[in-house]
């Protein structure tokens, strides 16, 4: 049995190696560091493999008058071309089933970089070169890339907007002592997964086709391929061993690559691989939605919020994709951790002539949370208070202050304790005083540098808001030698899902984790899976795996009772052995006995999240099973001559419930924070006036480097927390919630900027706060110009 490399850990309290609640390295760590972990592009290509390459539009909005592919066909190595006419099934891969996302454009291209056709050639280089040779005649149409401009130009919504309303916000505003209305611009973000999109299709007999791909949603890829090929889903198998990062970018965006590779594989009856270059990947696939938010907040002299109105205008791109649920989730999180007595929130999912935006870690949530935090800042600057004080008076809790704008009751709020602990451990008050003193001195002496410090909490709802996605399956085989093969519907993209689910199974059978082999995700092993998304991977698949394990255990216990004539409670799974009455038997011997007695040693497990429901029409329900919490304090120094800055220190305290694997969870928290910081600092998407994205590779799109992370970085899990709900081993989801802790950096920058005008004005920094944005904001405040860049 080939084992993945697990470290030799000392015996845990439970007595097995690699049980739950234990620090354990990623199941593939040794393969990662030796370069022996296979990604899709590393799979050995069978003889005869062809390569497809997409031809992309070079207009943001235009009629295709003529698409002449004969020059492509004349190029070296070219086997053929595919365009809309070659699609055997339906030319649509809209994941929201709105029929608005063609595989290939038929008559009008709607964003710069939209796939028009594909070239199939003997080598990737040949296919790529040939794809440049098409002669395309365009008739230009008006281009609108900005969401606000789209609204003004009367562009439609790509999905049904949502309204969340509670109380009467007009009344709330009417008597309020203070009211501030303004606007915030929040930039998008490219996923910049290190491994780009890729699909590799192997044709089989009849209508069969097998795909190897780097997708977070194998079942959807399977269904889309079936739809596009006009065949049944049972003929399509999608497999994913691992991804080189996903972050939401491979939830729906991989579909086109799978469909085109599959189409070509069936047409030419040869294996076909499709991997775009990084620039094409970034041009042709969606990103985090950028938003323009008009907010209006009323509050009293203590900073307590009385009423909130918000309009969330999102650049969705040309099609719906996941923009409906993404903009919904922005509203779900527009309260962040705060109770709004009267509230009305509306989403405006605008169509624009840009690539269709998609899922990205947080899924609209961060864009909601950041607006709540901006309103807190507004209040604090207006009243001359420490923003932390304003935050605390607005936390959920206390009589009649536990209902969200979507009418879910917040029952598990731990922010009071968590924030107090973090403030204490990070010396928030002392450091705030020091920062204020530093800035005061700088104002007096005309010195250049300013500091800022900010503590930002986050509350994040866990569950897919599309209730039916909250289900998962698993498949466990125990072989006659006692080795265990584990499969589940989730996909491994680096987050350690496979490790955690294996820990759950090791714990269930009380065997060392080395006995368990986690295999690739495959649609023919576990069907109808949900995307590995919404931070739900472990919650759902861990439970489904546990269900399968319990089924097998039940059979094993029944077998033991019958064979050795004992009661059920006399059969105990001890570390690597089974105790039957007074006798002990090694696990593998016991399994061998069970096999000989014809016990079924395989089970399919299933899980669906309880308690959740959601009525979108009414805007009411309980969309979330529970909330995850966290908070971060960041301190920054800005250079008021250049706008450059350094994050001096960040302290994080984050809630993952009772962690299944604290080491991996810590890694998720650290990584999410830095990614969130990148979103709000250096990661800027820039379209030119023709609608072409000009930041389309790491040369122009700048994610954080090692030298950008906080000079001091203290990250802790709230070890005392456990999930109030019956989640897997009382743990909590971790993928998305800590992403929003990056907002502490933006607000620390904001404070540093505000200092130049003695904190009298909220600087209203746009995100991302690039050095340029910071300098222009400083200048605006210094010149008394009010609203900054």
């Amino acid at each position, binding site marked *: 049995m080939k084992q993945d490399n697990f470290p030799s850990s000392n015996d845990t309290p439970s007595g097995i190696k690699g049980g739950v609640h234990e620090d354990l390295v990623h199941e593939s760590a040794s393969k990662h560091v030796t370069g022996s972990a296979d990604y899709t592009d590393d799979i050995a290509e069978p003889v005869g493999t062809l390569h497809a390459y997409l031809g992309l539009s070079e207009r943001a909005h235009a009629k295709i008058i003529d698409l002449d592919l004969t020059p492509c066909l004349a190029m070296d190595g070219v086997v053929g071309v595919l365009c809309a006419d070659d699609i055997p099934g339906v030319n649509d891969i809209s994941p929201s089933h709105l029929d608005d996302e063609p595989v290939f454009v038929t008559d009008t291209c709607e964003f710069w970089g939209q796939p028009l056709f594909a070239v199939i050639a003997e080598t990737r280089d040949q296919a790529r070169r040939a794809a*440049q040779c098409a002669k395309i005649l365009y008739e230009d149409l008006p281009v609108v890339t900005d969401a606000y401009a789209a609204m003004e130009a009367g562009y439609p919504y790509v999905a049904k907007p949502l309204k969340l309303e509670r109380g009467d916000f007009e009344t709330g505003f009417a008597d309020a002592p203070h009211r501030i209305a303004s606007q915030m611009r929040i930039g998008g973000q490219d996923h910049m997964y290190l491994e780009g999109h890729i699909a590799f299709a192997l044709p089989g007999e009849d209508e069969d086709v097998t795909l190897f791909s780097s997708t977070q949603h194998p079942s959807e890829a399977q269904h889309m391929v079936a739809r596009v090929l006009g065949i049944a889903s049972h003929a399509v198998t999608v497999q994913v061993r691992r991804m080189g990062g996903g972050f939401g970018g491979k939830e729906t965006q991989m579909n086109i690559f799978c469909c085109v590779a599959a189409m070509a594989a069936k047409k030419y009856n040869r294996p076909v691989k499709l991997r775009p270059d990084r620039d094409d990947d970034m041009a042709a696939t969606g990103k985090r939605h950028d938003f323009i938010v008009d907010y209006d907040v009323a509050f009293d002299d203590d900073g307590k919020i009385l009423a909130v109105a918000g309009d969330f205008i999102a650049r969705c791109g040309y099609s719906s994709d996941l923009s409906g649920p993404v903009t919904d989730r922005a509203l779900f999180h527009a309260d962040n951790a705060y109770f709004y007595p009267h509230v009305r929130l509306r989403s405006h999912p605008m169509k624009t002539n840009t690539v269709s935006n998609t899922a990205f870690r947080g899924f609209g949530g961060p864009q909601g949370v950041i607006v709540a935090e901006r309103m807190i800042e507004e209040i604090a600057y207006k009243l001359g208070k420490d923003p932390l004080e304003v935050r605390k008076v607005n936390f959920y809790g206390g009589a009649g202050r536990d209902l969200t704008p979507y009418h879910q009751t917040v029952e598990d709020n731990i922010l009071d304790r968590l924030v107090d602990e973090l403030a204490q451990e990070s010396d928030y008050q002392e450091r705030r005083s020091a920062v204020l003193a530093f800035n005061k001195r700088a104002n007096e002496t005309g*010195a250049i540098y300013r500091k800022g410090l900010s503590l930002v909490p986050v509350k994040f709802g866990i569950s897919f808001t599309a209730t039916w996605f909250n289900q998962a399956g698993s498949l466990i085989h125990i072989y006659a030698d006692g080795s265990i093969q584990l499969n589940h519907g989730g996909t491994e993209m680096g987050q350690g899902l496979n490790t955690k689910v294996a820990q759950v199974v090791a714990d269930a059978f009380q065997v060392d984790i080395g006995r368990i082999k986690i295999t690739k995700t495959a649609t023919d092993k576990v069907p109808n899976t949900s995307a590995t998304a919404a931070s739900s991977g472990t919650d759902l698949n861990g439970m489904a795996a546990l269900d399968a394990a319990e089924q097998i255990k039940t059979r094993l216990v029944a077998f033991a009772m019958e064979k050795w004539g004992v009661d059920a409670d006399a059969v105990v799974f001890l570390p690597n052995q089974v105790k039957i009455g007074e006798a002990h038997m090694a696990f593998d011997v016991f399994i061998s006995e069970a096999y000989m007695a014809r016990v079924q040693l395989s089970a399919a497990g299933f899980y669906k999240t309880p308690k959740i429901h959601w009525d979108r029409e009414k805007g009411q329900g309980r969309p979330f099973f529970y909330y995850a919490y966290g908070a971060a304090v960041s301190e920054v120094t800005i250079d008021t*001559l250049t706008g450059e800055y350094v994050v001096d220190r960040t302290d994080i305290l984050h809630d993952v419930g009772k962690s299944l694997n604290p080491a991996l969870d810590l890694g998720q928290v650290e990584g999410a924070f830095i990614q969130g910081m990148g979103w709000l600092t250096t990661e800027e998407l820039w379209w030119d006036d023709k609608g072409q994205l000009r930041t389309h590779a790491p040369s122009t799109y700048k994610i954080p480097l*090692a030298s950008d992370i906080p000079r001091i970085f203290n990250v802790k899990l709230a070890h005392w927390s456990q999930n109030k709900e019956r989640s897997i081993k009382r743990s909590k989801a971790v993928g998305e919630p800590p992403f929003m802790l990056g907002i502490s950096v933006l607000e620390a920058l904001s404070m540093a900027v505000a200092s130049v005008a003695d904190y009298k004005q909220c600087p209203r920094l746009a995100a991302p706060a690039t050095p340029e944005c910071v300098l222009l904001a400083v200048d605006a405040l210094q010149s008394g110009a009010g609203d900054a860049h």
Partner: protein
Amino acid sequence: MPSIRDEVSFWLNDQLITRSAFSPCETLLDFLRLNQRLTGSKEGCAEGDCGACTVLVGRLYRGGLIYETVNSCIRFLPSLDGCHVVTIEALKGQNGALHPVQQAMVDHHGSQCGFCTPGIVMSLYALWMEVPQPNRQQVETALQGNLCRCTGYAPILKAAAAISDYGTPASDWLENERNVNFDRLADLKHGDRVVIEKDGQRAILPANLDDFSHVRLDEPDATIVAGSTDVGLWVTKNMRALDVMVFVGHLEEMKEISCAKPYITLGAGATYSEAQDAVVEHFAHLKDFWNRIAGQQIRNMGTIGGNIANGSPIGDLPPVFIALGADVILRRGWEERRVPLEQFFIAYGKQNREQGDFVKAIRIPLMQDSSHHAAYKISKRRDEDISSVCVAFNLTVEDGVISKARIAFGGMAGTPKRAEHCEARLIGQPFCEASLVAAGACLDEDFTPLSDWRASDVYRMKVAKNLFRRFWLDQIDGQPEQEAAQ
């Protein structure tokens, strides 16, 4: 004329590779992944910006054998003639265990998705061989060219700091086989001109500098490739067909660095890394600046001459060298001529270069005691980014009065350019903050910058003006708050 051979030879891990009749544009990464099925090195961007493809290249240099990280995605195969390529597949510990670098990464949870990991391991490996116990800044510098999107780097920094607990370079196989590999590479030295040809494309590796002069005259339209950090992208990104490529990165004569007062001369073929010590020794104000040129892998590949010869308005070196009053030494056949660097850049995409010319070296006057220098680079991200604005100051102050001023900007016009109005405003003025700020205010007369994805015209102008003040502040002592910010 030297004899001609039609093949290149290099060592790949422990295997001798000899190739002839291949496309000169074939990248090392494609060769590794597609031809050799060594798939540990990954393609993340194909433009030398993410580091997932990082490998080590060993070569003979100044009598020794050095190993450096490079981006295999933009390194052309012909340039490896006589080198030793070391990939992640060859990195092994003793008795089949993980290598210390690898074990430290595993134990500190330094990988999540794992795709960037082989490149990061190679960068840390190169650092550890050089500096077994690096400080944080050294680690960050070594990782400037490696992106990780999952971990947030914190565990990688911890792993890097712990490697020496797992083993010392003395136990490393590459260290132990250094003599063997030195001999192997010495055996590959041939002194011939190499010509590789396939399907009408040709790569020429001149035998030496004189041979290069001949080749340059014979093939005036050929593309000269030194570090391929720019030309590499012409191929991987623009899919340009380069019919004839002349590789010069192997020419030691082109790398010569000599100091004969009052000048220092940097061979055009010297990489940023090769030139670093000499530059920092003579121009202390470039110490931090130098490490902000690209990332480590690119500094190991890109050359001084390449940064100038490609004529980019946003190259980091031209403003710095223009401010220092450097000349570019052009060679054509047997003749050499000197052109002041600022006159080399005529217009965007157009340089003062005649057919058959090539950039042989840069001659820089050494600094005078009476001169004041600084160089600043402003970019969206601090490291491994292209400048929005780059500026270098060089003021001569006599008796408290500015007598000479050379101030050159990049990113403000179609070429690297001096700020003549600002300079004129400074001459005869007292060396003080007010003079500098007043000079900065004249910048509108010198430049009308553009807006693009790196920066807006407004920001470029504003920050450029503010840097005059920054220059002054850096001249006076006692800026404790700056320490706090660094």
